[in-house]
């Protein structure tokens, strides 16, 4: 038993006084005295706090049956967890399913997906297709998921949720001659043509990169797959003797082996040209020539062309807003789901027990997505391998007398730990879910009345420190 740890405070004399004021011993001593005084004043106001434990359900649900979700699911199945994948379409596979080949192995997408689905099923994972998420309630270790599967309801309890809902490709609308010229197509359409072996009478192909990426409408950031995909496709075309040009805004090849692929493409004579703005596409009935200004030559560079490929960026999936509301997972300025912290919680979300992997977080290529999928599987396993989850007691607490139920605390809480409930008719009050509360105290700052306070960092405790300092 012993002393409650929350009755303890450190007057940080060593790091924040003696070491940093080595040359001023007298002043440092005075400061140390004051730091002790402040600490004593704070300790006087402290109250004992106790850890709480909550039971954990060991099942996992993965939203999305693309390559990321499948990989994550298999990893979790291998660790002995029960895993369900929820897929909105009538079959698993996502975007990868439709790819002619994936780098660096150059295997057809469908082949890879089929293999993963087979393994997932063999290990007794369940893929629920044509399923729509209706509602999610609860908190870490105890989520309740409600589905609508082809008209009928399904409900189950899970301990953790993995969002692997992916992204969708930018629709160029009428830009870059898309829709106007039959021979201007997107890279996904090219993939289909390559699969169907439908590239005929083509001498020159020009790729336009960054369509719907990096501030060009769509995704404000780099879509991270398109340079490498275009290079992969370019190599394929070049090997058939086709002249290939890739109009780019800086080639970005960061995947494993991609630099080598980029070099190979150049070796084969693929022309990489920088461009800015929108290239001029001309032709009668079909695109015949594409022209870009050259920053270096004071010239306009034209390329005779038979097929133009728009490498379209990745944008958040259509239902990402709805899912973000249902899961209470915030979205970043780019509208992709936001991780809890880029360094300390890169696959976690603000909602404990809800994890992110793949392109629903930010655009990335297959290799990165599946690395993340495996990372998430490890995180989930670490979480769910415990019988109980311990909750730190530094959480916000509401004094219902002073609570006006105005909801400003709930509004600022990034962790959705505060709910405004109707105590009696017309009387609302804030309620803190201690399992969700992370203990930042931002709600305290937002509260107009002082009804909500952060345990262990109560206003009175902080004011006591100030008063001791100046008293």
């Amino acid at each position, binding site marked *: 038993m012993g002393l409650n740890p929350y009755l303890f405070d450190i007057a940080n004399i060593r790091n924040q006084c003696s070491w940093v004021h080595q040359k001023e011993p007298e002043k440092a001593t005075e400061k140390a005295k004051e730091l002790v005084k402040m600490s004593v004043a704070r300790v006087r106001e402290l109250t004992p706090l106790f850890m709480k434990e909550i039971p954990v359900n060991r099942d996992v649900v993965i939203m999305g049956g693309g390559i990321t979700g499948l990989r994550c699911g298999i990893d979790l199945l291998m660790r002995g967890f029960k895993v369900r994948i929820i897929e909105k379409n009538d079959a698993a596979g996502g975007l990868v399913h439709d790819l002619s080949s994936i780098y660096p192995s150059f295997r057809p997408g469908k082949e890879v997906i089929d293999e993963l689905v087979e393994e997932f099923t063999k290990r007794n994972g369940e893929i629920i297709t044509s399923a729509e998420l209706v509602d999610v309630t609860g908190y870490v270790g105890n989520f309740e998921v409600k589905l609508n599967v082809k008209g009928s309801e399904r409900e189950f309890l899970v301990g953790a949720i993995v969002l692997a809902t992916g992204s969708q490709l930018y629709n160029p609308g009428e830009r870059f001659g898309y829709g106007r010229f039959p021979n201007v197509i997107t890279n996904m359409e090219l993939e289909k043509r390559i699969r169907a072996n439908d590239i005929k009478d083509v001498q*020159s192909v020009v790729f336009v990169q960054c369509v719907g990426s990096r501030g060009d409408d769509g995704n404000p950031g780099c879509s991270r797959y398109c340079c490498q995909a275009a290079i992969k496709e370019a190599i394929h075309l070049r090997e058939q003797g086709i002249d290939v040009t890739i109009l780019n805004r800086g*080639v970005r090849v960061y995947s494993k082996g991609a630099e080598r692929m980029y070099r190979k493409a150049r070796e084969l004579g693929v*022309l990489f040209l920088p461009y800015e703005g929108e290239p001029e596409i001309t032709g009668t009935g079909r695109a015949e020539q594409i022209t870009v200004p050259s920053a270096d*030559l004071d*010239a306009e560079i034209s*390329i005779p062309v038979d097929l133009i490929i728009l490498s379209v960026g990745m944008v958040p999936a259509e239902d990402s807003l709805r899912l973000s509301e249902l899961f209470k997972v915030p979205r970043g300025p780019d509208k992709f789901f936001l991780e809890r912290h880029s360094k300390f919680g890169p696959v976690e979300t603000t909602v404990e027990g809800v994890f992110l992997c793949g392109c629903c977080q930010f655009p990335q290529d297959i290799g990165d997505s599946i690395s993340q999928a495996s990372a998430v599987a490890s995180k989930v396993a670490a979480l769910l391998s415990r019988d109980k989850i311990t909750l730190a007691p530094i959480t916000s607490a509401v004094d219902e007398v002073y609570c006006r139920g105005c909801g400003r605390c709930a509004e600022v809480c990034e962790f959705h730990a505060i709910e405004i409930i109707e105590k009696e008719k017309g009387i609302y009050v804030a309620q803190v879910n201690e399992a969700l509360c992370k203990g930042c105290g931002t709600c305290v700052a937002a509260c107009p009345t002082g009804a909500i306070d952060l345990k262990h960092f109560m206003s009175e405790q902080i004011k006591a420190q100030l008063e001791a300092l100046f008293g």
Partner: protein
Amino acid sequence: MPKEKVVVDFRFREKLNKITGGKHHNYCYQCSACVAVCPAARFTDEFNPRIILLKALLGMEEALIGEDSPIWLCTNCYSCYERCPQDVRPIEVIIALKNLAVERETAPANLAKLSENIAETGMSVTVSSAVNRRRQELGLPPLKTIPLEELKKILEEDEAEEPSSKKRKGEP
């Protein structure tokens, strides 16, 4: 002034590819490391190895191997080769371009003067009687005989072997 119009010529690039070292031009990703170390670029704006490589990538035959091409300003110092992170060997590309210019007969007149000696005498410097006299004065042995016959044989044109040689001439 209306901007110059450049139409990418993939065929010229293929021609360049066939000259030893010419193929490496494909690797250039225009980073400018070569320009930073190029002594010629330091002393004149007319010469810029990156721009030469860009023109090679665009297949700008006339600009590269027409009359007054800047490629002849290269000092042959190999700094670009040393520095290039992509093994473009810019100087070798430039020399390959020079080979093409020689084929097209657009090389500067003094190039022939500076190099014809070798094919004819086996030496780049003219062998004269004064040379042997000077050597004698210094106590050096007389010059060895130069195997001119062998040299002439190995320098004979062989069209079957070297597709890049003169047969281009009739083309536009």
